[in-house]
Every structure is written in C-alpha cells, then in structure tokens.
C-alpha cells in the first residue's frame, strides 16, 4: 500500500497550483500505467499524487494548418489508426499499437508516455522524428518546448516544478514529398523495444534528400539523433539508393554506445540500430514517394 495524499483537480490551473503548492513531493498521475510500477518499486515516493483524471480540456485532437495538436490525456488506444485521419501522424501510428497491451493502452495517455521518459520509449522516438513540440502549463503561464529538449535523459524531463504537460503539437509537412516511419524490435509482444528507430525524410524536386531525421531509442538515456547518418543522406540521392540507406544504418550503428541489458547485450543493440535505421528510412521514403 502506498501512503500518500491523492488529489483530484478539475482544471489545468488548479492542477498547476496544487503541484506548485506541494513542491517536490507532488507527482502527476494520468493513466497510472507507469506510475503504478514506479510506486510499487519504490522509485517514486510522492507525498501527493495529483490525478489529472478529472482535468478537462486535455482530450482533444485538432488539426490546423500548422499541425495536429493532441491533448495530453488522449489515450494510446485512441491514437491507434490515427495515421488514417491525420496522415502526418503515421509514424506515431506505427508505434501505438505495439505499446504494452490493449488493457494498458486503454488507460495509458500520450502525456504520460512522454513524461515517463523511459529510455526505450517508442512514442518519444516517433515524436522526435516528427519534430513535435510539447506545451507545458505552469503557475507562471505556458511555454513550448521541442520534444528533443523536453526529454533530457533516462526518466528525466525538462518539466519544471509545478509544470503540467498539456498538449503535443506535430507540425505539418508536405505529404507529397515527405514522410516519417518508425521501426522497432522487441523480444516479446508487449515489451519495451530493445531498439527503436524513427526516421523522417523530405525530398526535393529531383528526389534528393532535402531533410532527414533519424532518431534512435534505447541506446542512450534520451532518444538521440544519428547525426552522422543524417549527414550521409542530406542532399544526396536516396530514392532507390539502398546502398546509401545501408550506409546510413551502419553509420548510425557506429555512433551509438548502448549499455548492456540483461537479455540484450550492447553489441546486439548496435546490430539492430543498423537494421532498423535502414528499415525506417526505407519505409519513410516509400511513403514519401507513394
């Protein structure tokens, strides 16, 4: 049994006030899927749990010219199939149905998935490849942070004391010449991946790579850009150029130094980075040229 206060604010501002009031001892709980594990293992010992279950206004998905805005409380199951209604979110759609299982996804929220900051998080990797930003609300107002800067390390975020993640914005891009994809490898269905890779590509008029992002999960504390792989591709011909994609994969692998997991030694993760980088790029290019 966990001995702490359980508070249930009904608005973002009330939640922020409570967070500020109770300082370091206060922790947000959304769907509770990661929080319950942290509490059980004693890794989080809050004095106050601030449940955002009854906070309104965090459950919408809206599209505008700038992009798609997703409320922090949108559950992963609601995001399953999201690529069909909002094609710029296909890379996110690639991962949501692989997270845990149906029961967990019924409760797990997008905000929770990001704020957990698990080094193997697929969600963060996919959103990083999509250049998403997160909006934080606090006692002193709102601020917007790129997701790459928000997740700062294993189980660590840039959220300040009293700040609540309220929404995620995935910027628009031209679907006729750009796309993203995510590929992962897990030992078992429902497991966090051994490695996950998100890729975004945009092509210029002649099919060369205009922009590219390759983001690697579970090889460092926070998802990391494979800069050498990106540099190998940027400005070069990549459509149908399997050699270049394989090279990018090898470059990405050459520049990670993951820690050993009990069931997946570092060496194995490095092998997977190479394969998954190539596969994610292949898929992104296939989508951009479809």
């Amino acid at each position, binding site marked *: 049994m966990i001995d702490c206060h359980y508070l249930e604010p009904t608005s973002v501002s009330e939640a922020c006030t409570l967070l500020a009031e109770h300082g370091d001892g206060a922790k947000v709980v959304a769907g509770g899927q990661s929080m319950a594990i942290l509490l059980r293992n004693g890794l989080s010992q809050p004095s106050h749990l601030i449940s955002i279950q009854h906070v309104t206004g965090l459950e919408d998905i809206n599209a505008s010219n700038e992009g798609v805005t997703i409320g922090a409380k949108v559950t992963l199951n609601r995001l399953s199939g999201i690529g069909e209604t909002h094609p710029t979110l296909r890379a996110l759609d690639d991962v949501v149905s692989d997270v845990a299982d149906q029961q967990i996804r019924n409760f797990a929220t997008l905000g929770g998935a990001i704020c957990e900051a698990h080094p193997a998080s697929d969600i963060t990797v996919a959103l990083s490849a999509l250049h998403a930003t997160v909006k934080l609300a606090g006692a002193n107002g709102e601020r917007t942070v790129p997701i790459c800067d928000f997740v700062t390390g294993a189980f660590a975020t840039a959220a300040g004391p009293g700040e609540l993640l309220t929404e995620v914005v995935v910027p628009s891009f031209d679907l006729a010449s750009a796309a993203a994809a995510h590929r992962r490898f897990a030992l078992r269905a429902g497991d966090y991946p051994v490695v996950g890779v998100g890729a975004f590509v945009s092509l210029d008029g002649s099919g060369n790579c205009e922009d590219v992002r390759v983001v690697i999960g579970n090889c460092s504390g926070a998802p990391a850009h494979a800069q050498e792989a990106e540099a190998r591709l940027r400005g070069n011909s990549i459509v149908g150029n399997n050699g270049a994609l394989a090279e990018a994969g090898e470059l990405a692998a050459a520049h990670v130094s993951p820690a050993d997991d009990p*069931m997946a030694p570092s060496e194995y993760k490095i092998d997977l980075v190479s394969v998954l980088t190539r596969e994610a790029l292949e898929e992104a290019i296939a989508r951009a040229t479809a």
Partner: protein
Amino acid sequence: MAVVGTSTKRIDGIEKVTGTAEFTTDIVLPRMIHAKLKRSPYAHAKILGIDTSKAEQMPGVRAVITAADLPDVRLGVLTLDEHLLAHDKTRLVGEPVAAVAADTPEIARAACEQIEVQYEELPPLFDPEEAIRLDPPVVLHEEYEEYEKLLEIADMDERPPNLWQAYRIRHGDMDAAFKKAEDEGGHVIENRYATGYVHTACMEPHGAVAQWSSDGSLTLWAGGQSPYIARDGLAKALDLSPSKVRVIVPFVGGAFGGKLTVKEGAIAAALARKARRPVKIILTRAEDLSATAARTPFIFDIKDAVTKDGILIGRKVTSILWGGGYSGEGILKPIFSTHLYPGSYRLAALWVDSYGVYTNRVSGGALRGYGCAESAWAVETQMDIIARKCDIDAVELRINNLLTEGERTAITMPAHAFSAHECLTKCADAIEWGTPSESLESPWYRGKGIALGNKYSFAPTASSTELKVHEDASCELRTSAVDLGQGAYTILTQIVADEFGIEIDQVKLVTPDTAITPFDHVAGSSRQTFHTGNATRMACDDAKSQIRTLAAPKLEADPDDLDVSGGRIFVKGSPEQSIEVEDLFVVEMLAGKRPADVEVIGKATWEVTASPHDPNTGQGEEPMAYMGHGAQAAEVEVNVETGQVRIRKFVSAIDVGKAMNPQGVEMQNYGGGCMGIGIALHEDMCFDANGEMTNASLMDYKIPSIVEMPLNEYMESIIVEVPHQHGPYGAKGAGEIVVVPTSPAIGNAIYDAIGVRIWDQPLTPEKVLKAWKEKKASGNGSG
C-alpha cells in the same frame, strides 16, 4: 456410457472461470497477521550477528524470528543441508535470514528493513566447473561430511568438496565402441551443450497460512504439490510429530515442480507460534522469481560412436548440474536426467557420469521434465548432427536406432509400451517431413526440425484413496492428489463415474487435507493419472465389493454374481433382479439414514516398489514406474538480420497409453508446447556479478505471450495410445513429456533454416544473430 476416454467438462472449470475458486491468498482468518522475510543481499557471507531490537519495537510488529528461535535442524529432500533461516552463513542472494510477522504486510516489510545483520562477505563461487574441482577456490559447505544423507552417491576416490551428487551408468565396452567407429569408417562425434536458468514462474506465487491450536497442533494452508511431503517437512523443521501437523491444499495456481516443499510455510508457522496468531505469507513476484528454486543449468559433454551407416554403438556422457547454495529438490536430478539416455535408443555401450555441485546461486529445483528436458536438448541435437554427418534423414536415423518392445535397455529394464516409433512417424507426417520448407524473401529463412523424447515416472511410490458411497448412490473420493491445473480432479472424477456407472455430477471430491485424505506421494513426475488413478479404481472395487456383500442377502444371490452400476445392484445376466443402492440404507430414529451394516468406504493403496538404483552402474530391473514417449516437430522462420525466430508450425505427438480425457491431453500438448517454446527461445534468469538476479519481474523475465505462439491452425496435438500393462485403463501420464523434445526440435529447425547451431539455451535472437555472423565470417556452417 463410458466416461473415461471422453472429454468431459473440467470439474474445477466453473469455479476458476467465475473467480470463486479459493487459493491460498484468499484465505483470511480471524486475528491473522502477515509475514515478510529478511533476505541476504550477499551470495556468500558469514553471519556475525543479527540485531532485531529495532524491528521488535515497531508498532504493529507481533513477532520476529531468526535461526536462534528455531530448532537447530538441517532440512532437505535427501541431503539435509539447509536451515529454514540462515544459520552461520548465507549461501545465496535472497536466502532468508530473519522473518517478521506484523499487523500488515507493509509494517512487516518496514520492520525487516530495521533488522540489522552483520555480515562478513566471503568470496562467492558461481562457476560449476570450478566448483567441481578437487581443490575449488571456495567451499560452500565445510560440514558436508556431517550432514545426514538419505541416498548413496557413486563411489569416488575423493569427493570434490562442493559435490553433492554423483551417479553413473556403466553398460558395454565404451573403448571398443569408439575404436570400432574409428576403424570401420564410422564417426566419433563430440559436443558440449548447456541449458539455461529457467523458473516455473507460476501465476500464483508461493505462499501459506499457518494457524496453531491450543493443543499445540498446526494447520497449514498452502498451494503445494504434496500435502504429505509438506507435512513431514513442517514436522521436521518445527520439531513436531507429523500427526500434529495438518496440511490443507486449496486450489493451486500452477506449480510445475516449483512447489514441492513449503519452506516459507514453515517460517510462517514458526512466526505464528511465537505471535500466537495465524500468519499469512505470500511472496512477491520478485521474491518468487529470484529466491525460490529454479531449473538450474546443466552442462553436457556427449561423445558418440556411430557406424558409417548411422547406427549408434556407444554414447558417453558427462554432465554437471549447476546447483545452487543447497541441494534442495534438485538432489535427484543428476540421477533422473540420465534415464533419458537408455529410454529411446539401442546402445551397445552407454557410459554416463553425472554430477551435481553447489554454487552460490539459487538452489536447483524441479521443473516439468526434471532433468530429461535438459538431457534431451543435448541428445536430440546430437542425433540431428549425426544424421547430417551420415547423410541420413533425421527421422530414419532415429528409427534405425530405436529399441523394440520388450528389448532390454542399456540400464537392464526392458522397454515396455514402446511407442517412440509411432510418435515419431505421426509427428513427421504432420509436419510434412521430407518436403523442404518454402523459401522466403530475404532476410527470412524457413526450416524444419524434429526431436524425440521420453520421460520416466519415478519409483518407489504409492498412492492411497478412499471412496465413500452415499445413500443417494453418489460417491465421494478422498484423495491427497493435487490438481495443479493439469486436470487431476477431473480425471479422478471420471474414473469414479466410470467404475460406478454414474454421472460425473454424482461424484464429489474431498481434496487434499492430511486430517482427512489418505497418503498420496506427490503431484509430480507425471504420476497422478497412473498411480492415483490405479488407487482410485482399486478403492472403487473395494467399495463395490462391500456393496455386493451387503446386497447379497437381499437379492438372495452370491456376492460374486452381483454387479453395481448406475446406483443399482443387480444379478449379472438378469438386470431385472435388482435393488437400489439406497435400499442398503436404513432409517435411524432422529438420525437420517445410515448403512444397514457399516459405512461403505472403499480403501486402497497402489504401490510400485522399484529395484534400487545402483549409483555405480545405473543398472536395475525396474528403476522407475513407467516410461512415456513423445515426439515434437517445429517449422521455424529465422530473420538473419535481427536473429528473431518465429515458430510457424508446431506439432506435438505424445503417447498417453489411454487418453482418459482427450481434451485434457490436448491441453497438455498445447500448454506444454508453449512452455517448451518459452524455455527454448525466451526464458532466462540473468544474474549480476554478485549473484543477484537482474530480471526478477514478469516484464523482464521473458515468458512468451500468445503472440509468440504459432497460430491456432499451425499448432497440432497428436494423441498416441499404446497401453501400459500397469496403467489404469492402460494410461500413462502426459504432464512432462510435452516439454521434453521441444528445445531440440526448435534448435534443429533453426539449423535447417540457416545452418547454425546454438549450443546453449535459450536460443535468443542475439545468439542466433551472432552465430549467423560467425558463420558468414568463416564462410561455412558450424554444426
């Protein structure tokens, strides 16, 4: 209508599905408190002192115990080497050193943290090959020679100080076999195999509830595999007469060999005695996975002599069981694992040296297959290698080497109900053996593999049952056989219904309670259908004979001319001359009905006495109760970029003598297949350099999910029925054989797909990929 042989509904099904079935954790007693254990953080350490004063002063704490509060007795299955709570030394991470009972589990846990134990760390020993040296770097049990031992081990010039088991098979002229193979153009094939650390990881963790009565007797509720083993263990640990101990077994959420003894139950009982309150203990998942007995690894060195035509003429095996801090329930494994070698194939020479050693890791226990699933990994991979070397089809090679019915095996005992041929060929047909797998698009490759297996059921052993007949002709079976989920209660109910010609709803089971139900050895070694089944039939016979005697005067017939069926007693051949069972009962003033004569309670004991094992030769006329056979085949898909292995198709063909409940057998085939697939590909307990398990959660200990299993239509169960002369209705057990051939079938399929061998389980993607890369680098295969 015959009930045995039909797929009747499971009698525990509705209770389990609706959640009304009561498990140990559901038991709540008045004034009950909760126990937690203080465990050693060190793999090997001297205990210099334990200070429990802070814990004792905490509000809500009712009792704290250490070894000093317990009788100074060593416990064990056959080598008594373990104290209930660590005495002067701890020999594995997680060994209990103290225990607390408190008003809530949280208080008990907090109090455990307040117990101060002073340790002097000793160097740990983890490597079994170092452990077995005559001059090992570390000795775990300095006082081994003084321990009480109930079993003789093989003679040795000098016992390595960490060795607790040695067993040999000596049959035929081994040197001559190797010489013949070399001289006559045959092959000598030598390889090393290893198995991994596997846990039973039952849905229900270990637990117990203990309560003392004012007369100094103890009642313990615990979901174990044997109430009588538990009773005797508790009596010994707490220095009580066994008659003072009552063990009740509620529903059990899986056991698979992991719940043979009730160590935590005995600790709860000691706490309950001190606190004068009932005590419940339920292990956490992490404790269950890291600190209860596991299937610890084996190392096998196998050297085979084979003629150029693929006939095995000699097999030499040396194996070491990587035991833990205590010999525990693993004590017989180095012996029983050797039963596999002579069980299937004709071997002119068979020499086996099998050992068990102490190391500072989790103690070795039982897990479905008890040693044979491990030795099959080595043997059946070896058979595949031999087939390829001799360029003979792997099924044909096996068939050419099979024993025949009645033939003496390499350990003397003759082969009986020898169904290996039928299992193998049916399995081969189902996987379309001989038709190569389809080629897939890169990076995927497909391949097929097959393996044979056998599983002994141990002896000596016995089962007793009682069968009471009520005035409404319903029958009540009293048994200490345990339903662990395998369906024992259903099978026994079917037997009674069948013997009395009544519906299964008219059979009631009185489940294990040592105050009421008679002795049954254990729900283990695939023995309950066979032994308890026989005892149940005999008890039915006894009750029916009592009924015939009671009915004879009423029917004016000789008892031998009477038959009992469907609640009636009738004269054989003229069923119209009959009375109801009810007619045997008389109305008693104020007391309902009683039998006219005495109670009708049938009683029987079924016993199998074995010839003793000779630990120096392994020879014996009948060293086991029976031997079961089975074969499995897999078609796998291997990704050579990630090393991932998918089971596309899986076939399990097992011989059960007589399928008492065909659907039950099918479930064993599927469930066992799934477990075997998990052991082959996924499950692995990992340890850090200090000997602590690093993946003690179900998130990190990889039991496969349904997604990792083949699709329904690609999972095939085949039931073979070759009756055993002593089996009830000819039946043999099904519970263990279903995991024996699984790993080698899959390993052989991986070789067929991509030409690499992985020698040590589990066959993880990482190992597959590594082997593939090595093969590519060296430009050839490695098998």
